[in-house]
């Protein structure tokens, strides 16, 4: 577990280099601003400050870079809550309840919930990391395709909680999303559906597609409105209400804990990161909640669940990076580059020889999470003022930023074109009551689903009994099924209440349902 003498030395490093702490605030602000711009990724923010860190000493450089990382982890949720545009795929689940809350005029509270969940779980993730740094690294390498396939399936179960009037349309949307996610060259080297366009060889760029689908269903429809929130009284910017949201987070320790554990474990797996853990955390929280019917309509627990998984994921991916020297994603790849530029090679030998330094970096990240609370409140306060600007100014500006953001993803017109094509698709799907988020989930997870399924098949030579040799995968499936069964069993009473509500809904779409059951005769 934790090495006490190294821990003491780490505290020594931490307090003997107080001047390095000065980099925390600028780093956090850079991270927050970059991540709040849709399409600009954490990786890009860190790549920009990387050259600056070259001229610093090792520890201040690490403080600076990891501060950007910490700030960026939260920044994405600001546009997700205020405008339904997730800045990164990892804040996708935040939009479900975050945007609904802000439509109800509760944007102050929603951002408060998100910020505090981010802070608390960021710290929690690092505490966990401090305790299990080395064992975690070994576990991570043992996670194979079958386990990852189980995780991907778990992510897909979010679909069940998206709620749609028509199950058939939801399933069609999800299947379409998955197929879109598999376009391009698959892991075995087969190329499908590219129409000979080289840009599609690596598949449809998920971030522009996601922004397009969601922007169409919400942003473009704002054109007729005068303000993003129509009710005048609801547009206020209130520090008191932000703090109320922060405080309210503490009422849901269970949600925070579950989100953190899901976030740390999945965040530690190389190449996966928080873009799936937020979906799983959201789906699990919704499924086990007593008031699951109000999810998607502005339930703060939805925001907390999503944000807690994102924030704690940072700790997980840092663990993989420090202990193994392999990057979990783009951000940790930049961190490794920064390590190397200071002639430090992360990995097993780094942990063996420089444990105090590793601990000092982890401890400093906890400090950053606390500072994020203060800087974040200021940032939210400034950002929320967007609500007070008339749409005729906000909307053109946001659309320009989103378009340039998608350009930043691909570096050429392919990004903006993807944005536009998917905006039109999203518009049509929304018009005919297809759940657009189901398509997004499919696009985000389709590739992973295929890759891991295929590798599982290759490993087992098609023998399904192979899963018996993988206790990890069996455990994941078991947890998944037990959790499903328990909720199904425990919710019978609640289902009656939901049935009553569904009856109301059915009344609304009575005719459709009727037409649906009547086979077409002509």
């Amino acid at each position, binding site marked *: 577990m934790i090495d006490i003498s190294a821990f003491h030395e780490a505290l020594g490093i931490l307090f003997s280099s107080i001047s390095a702490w000065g980099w925390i605030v600028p780093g956090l602000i850079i991270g927050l601003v970059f991540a709040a711009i849709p399409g600009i990724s954490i990786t890009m923010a860190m790549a920009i400050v990387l050259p600056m860190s070259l001229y610093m000493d090792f520890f201040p450089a690490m403080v600076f870079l990891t501060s950007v990382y910490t700030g960026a982890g939260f920044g994405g949720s600001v546009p997700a809550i205020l405008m339904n545009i997730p800045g990164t795929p990892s804040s996708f689940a935040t939009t479900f309840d975050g945007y609904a809350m802000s439509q109800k005029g509760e944007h102050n509270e929603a951002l408060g919930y998100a910020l505090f969940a981010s802070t608390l779980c960021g710290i929690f993730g690092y505490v966990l990391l401090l305790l299990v740094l080395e064992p975690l690294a070994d576990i991570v390498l043992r996670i194979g395709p079958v386990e990852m396939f189980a995780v991907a399936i778990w992510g897909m179960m979010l679909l069940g909680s998206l709620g749609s009037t028509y199950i058939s349309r939801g399933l069609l949307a999800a299947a379409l999303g998955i197929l879109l996610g598999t376009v391009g060259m698959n892991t075995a080297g087969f190329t499908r559906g590219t129409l000979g366009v080289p840009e599609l060889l690596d598949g449809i760029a998920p971030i522009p597609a996601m922004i397009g689908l969601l922007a169409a269903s919400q942003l473009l429809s704002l*054109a007729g409105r005068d303000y993003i929130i129509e009710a005048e009284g609801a547009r206020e910017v209130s520090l008191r209400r932000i703090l109320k949201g922060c405080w309210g987070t503490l009422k849901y320790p269970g949600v925070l804990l579950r989100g953190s554990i899901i976030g740390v474990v999945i965040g530690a797996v190389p190449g996966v990161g928080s873009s799936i853990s937020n979906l799983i955390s959201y789906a699990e929280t919704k499924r086990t909640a007593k008031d699951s019917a109000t999810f998607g309509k502005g339930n703060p627990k939805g925001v907390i669940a999503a944000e807690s998984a994102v924030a704690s994921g940072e700790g997980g991916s840092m663990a993989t990076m420090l202990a193994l020297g392999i990057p979990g994603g783009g951000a940790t790849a930049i961190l490794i580059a920064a390590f190397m530029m200071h002639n430090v090679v992360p990995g097993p030998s780094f942990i063996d020889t420089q444990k105090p330094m590793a601990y000092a970096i982890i401890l400093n990240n906890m400090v950053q999470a606390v500072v994020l609370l203060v800087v974040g409140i200021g940032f939210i306060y400034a950002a929320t003022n967007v609500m007070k600007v008339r749409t005729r100014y906000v909307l053109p500006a946001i659309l320009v930023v989103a378009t340039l953001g998608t350009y930043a993803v691909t570096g050429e017109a392919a990004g903006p074109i993807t944005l536009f094509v998917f905006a039109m698709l999203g518009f049509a799907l929304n018009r005919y009551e297809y759940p657009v988020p189901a398509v997004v989930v499919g696009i985000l997870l389709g590739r992973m689903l295929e890759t891991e399924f295929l590798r599982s098949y290759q490993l087992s030579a098609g023998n399904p009994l192979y899963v018996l040799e993988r206790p990890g995968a069996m455990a994941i499936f078991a947890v998944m099924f037990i959790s499903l069964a328990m909720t199904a069993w425990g919710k019978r009473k609640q289902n009656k209440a939901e049935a009553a509500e569904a009856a109301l809904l059915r009344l609304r779409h009575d005719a459709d349902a009727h037409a649906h059951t009547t086979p077409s005769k002509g």
Partner: protein
Amino acid sequence: MRIGRQTYAIDYGHLALITLIAAAVFWYLLDARSVSLSVNNLLLVQPVAIFALAMYLFVLPQCFRKVDAREAARTASEQDPLSRNIPAERSDMLRMAALSVSLGLLVLLLDTLGFDIAIFLFTLAAMVICGERHPVRLLLFSCAVTLVAIYGFRAMIPYPMPTTLL
């Protein structure tokens, strides 16, 4: 359309959308199969595509609705402020369509006009569509957006942005 005693209206837009989706899925399946019939290629794609086509057949009848039901559905969807944000009024629909067209033009003309001119024109058009009529405000705000966007993104992203004037 009349079937028996019941009058049905065909929702042509919906029919077109799902038929287009089904056609795309079918083409994708054929394209994948033309590359290789190996399991390594079709393991996930083939079953999901077939599933999607099955769902198409399932959704198909929903395109045919009873006439009187239409009105009821429309008023109901207006009451839900969250899930369906498609504006019902004609003028709002026109605005959305105009905004979509402008966005399409922006995307297509970015490289040809240069990012600066394309962004300036788009901002101008989008502001007019959203209701701004004051010429000074239109020009000033469009200029501001263009300048901030170009210089801001130039500082942030590692790719060159072709511009004409800036």
